């Protein structure tokens, strides 16, 4: 009797001390304090973007022609811009455009890139060769030029900028997915699944995909950071968010001429971009460390 109870306790204890991979990843992530702090920063920006109408002191489009390019003051904490709009309000509302641009572009890249990469890596052969050459070709063209050309072709708008950035980010995910799939598909459990008679599509979705998710997650986070900068660059060139709607990139565009006279127009959106992008980068790096099977 006592042995049975002891064994039961032993089993229970053992079960508790077996960590699930997710729990282990989270524990390791929490150890990198920089990444955790970055996550908080991102959360703050996302909250600001969602609650914008509630927390913004002014309407971001309201022009006050008597208060053009005024320095930060009690009335306008971040100052006003070149047509008299409150900069703080525009930074808050601009978070929507910039964050959305980052997330949606990467979503497009994932939605297109991952399936293509899966098929390419899993099936191999001529299809793989074809897709790989096309991907190589896309990667060989300078990213910004492709994005500019695409955005110009589609017409200037935030939505089209997102599509352009998404399309130019897709090759990265194709290549990553393909690489990961090629590593995983020769693993034992995949061989086993095939031996048991699972159809290919099931193996791809149920066995291969979940195992490459960590790498995709890391890259997605890093790509969101790059996408936010790309949106800023496109808006800077006039191809992104259309006026008067704010986005951090288009605010920098307008602020260029006033760096000496009204530096606050450039400092705040520049800082916002910097903090957001840095945070996404730190989180991505943290995730990579946390999910790296080699770390303890």
């Amino acid at each position, binding site marked *: 009797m006592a042995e049975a109870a002891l064994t039961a306790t032993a089993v229970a204890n053992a079960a508790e001390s077996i960590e699930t991979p997710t729990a282990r990843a989270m524990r390791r992530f929490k150890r990198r304090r920089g990444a955790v702090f970055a996550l908080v920063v991102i959360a703050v920006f996302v909250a600001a973007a969602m609650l914008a109408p509630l927390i913004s002191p002014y309407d971001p489009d309201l022009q006050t022609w008597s208060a053009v390019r005024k320095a930060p003051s009690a009335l306008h904490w971040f100052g006003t811009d070149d047509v008299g709009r409150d900069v703080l309000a525009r930074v808050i509302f601009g978070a929507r455009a910039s964050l959305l641009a980052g997330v949606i572009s990467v979503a497009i890249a994932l939605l297109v890139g991952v399936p293509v990469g899966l098929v390419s890596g899993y099936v191999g052969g001529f299809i793989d060769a074809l897709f790989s*050459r096309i991907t190589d070709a896309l990667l060989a063209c300078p990213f910004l030029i492709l994005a*500019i050309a695409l955005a*110009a072709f589609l017409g200037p708008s935030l939505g089209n900028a997102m599509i352009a950035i998404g399309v130019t980010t897709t090759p990265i995910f194709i290549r990553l997915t393909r690489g990961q799939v090629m590593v995983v598909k020769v693993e034992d459990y995949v061989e086993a699944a095939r031996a048991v008679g699972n159809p290919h599509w099931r193996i791809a979705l149920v066995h291969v995909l979940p195992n490459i998710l960590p790498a995709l997650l890391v890259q997605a986070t890093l790509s969101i*950071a790059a996408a936010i*900068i790309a949106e*800023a660059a496109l808006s800077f060139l006039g191809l992104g968010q259309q006026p008067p709607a704010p986005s951090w990139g288009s605010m920098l565009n307008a602020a260029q001429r006033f760096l000496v006279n009204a530096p606050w127009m450039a400092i705040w959106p*520049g800082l916002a971009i910097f903090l957001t992008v*840095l945070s996404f*980068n730190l989180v991505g790096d943290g995730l990579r460390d946390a999910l790296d099977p080699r770390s303890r």
Partner: protein
Amino acid sequence: MQLIPTLFFVSVIIFSLQHLLPGDPALVMAGEERDPAAIEQIRQHYHLDRSLPVQYVYWVKGALSGDLGESMRLKEPVLSLIVKKLPVTITLASMAIIIALTIGVGAGIVSAVKKDSLWDYAANALALWGISTPNFWLGIMLIFLFSVKLGWLPASGYVPLTEDWRASLATMIMPAFVLGNAIAAILMRHTRSAMLHVLESDYIRTARAKGLLEHSVIFKHALRNALTPVITLGALEFGTLLSGAVLTEQIFAVPGFGKLIVDAVFNRDYAVVQGVVLVTATAYMTLNLLADMAYILVNPRLRG
């Protein structure tokens, strides 16, 4: 060789993208002047009145015999434009990579050796700063600080290295820094993970067990192994450099490829964009190939 089909796709992609862009280059060339006869003559001269596949064939035929067409705006052959600007871009790119290696590898080493400490975060932040700041913004801020306020460096322009190396460095240092910054982060990441990987390997444990001094372990043993993939990576970041150069050259008025291409896209100067992208894509893929070969040479284990 994989190069050929890839190049083919590159040519198709960039050609179609250019010609699908709304806007008529003949109209752009005319600008404010509106003479239908002159515009029609321009169209005919550049085969713009023919169908797209025909235009593509004209272009490829020319490219294969070394004629990349002519810039509509400047009436200069594209190849000659590229040759003129190549030294500029190469100088800028080389300086950028040197800066990137210095910052990136340095930060990577510190970050790996002092993992999870304050040094780690500081090195991390320093390298990440590069890809977290829009390069056009950073460029303008640097110009204001170092050219206008302090007067230490010229605000823009370019002096060839062979002409006056001091002045050349002075004009190049800011744009090279802005460009190199962006790549530093990527180099740092790879150095860090490569170093971490090596530092935990048996090879290093043996060295430590033998009683070697820590810094000797790091520099003589770990670094040499970790650095190989990193250096080959540095060469591959050429593509990222060119992307970054697009805006940086605009701001610092450096007459390199980046500026050439952006102006050409906005002026619908098809031949220039197509020619430059083709040339850079070829260079990029050649570098890739060389890097692959070098990697295999250095790491005999991969040969089998």
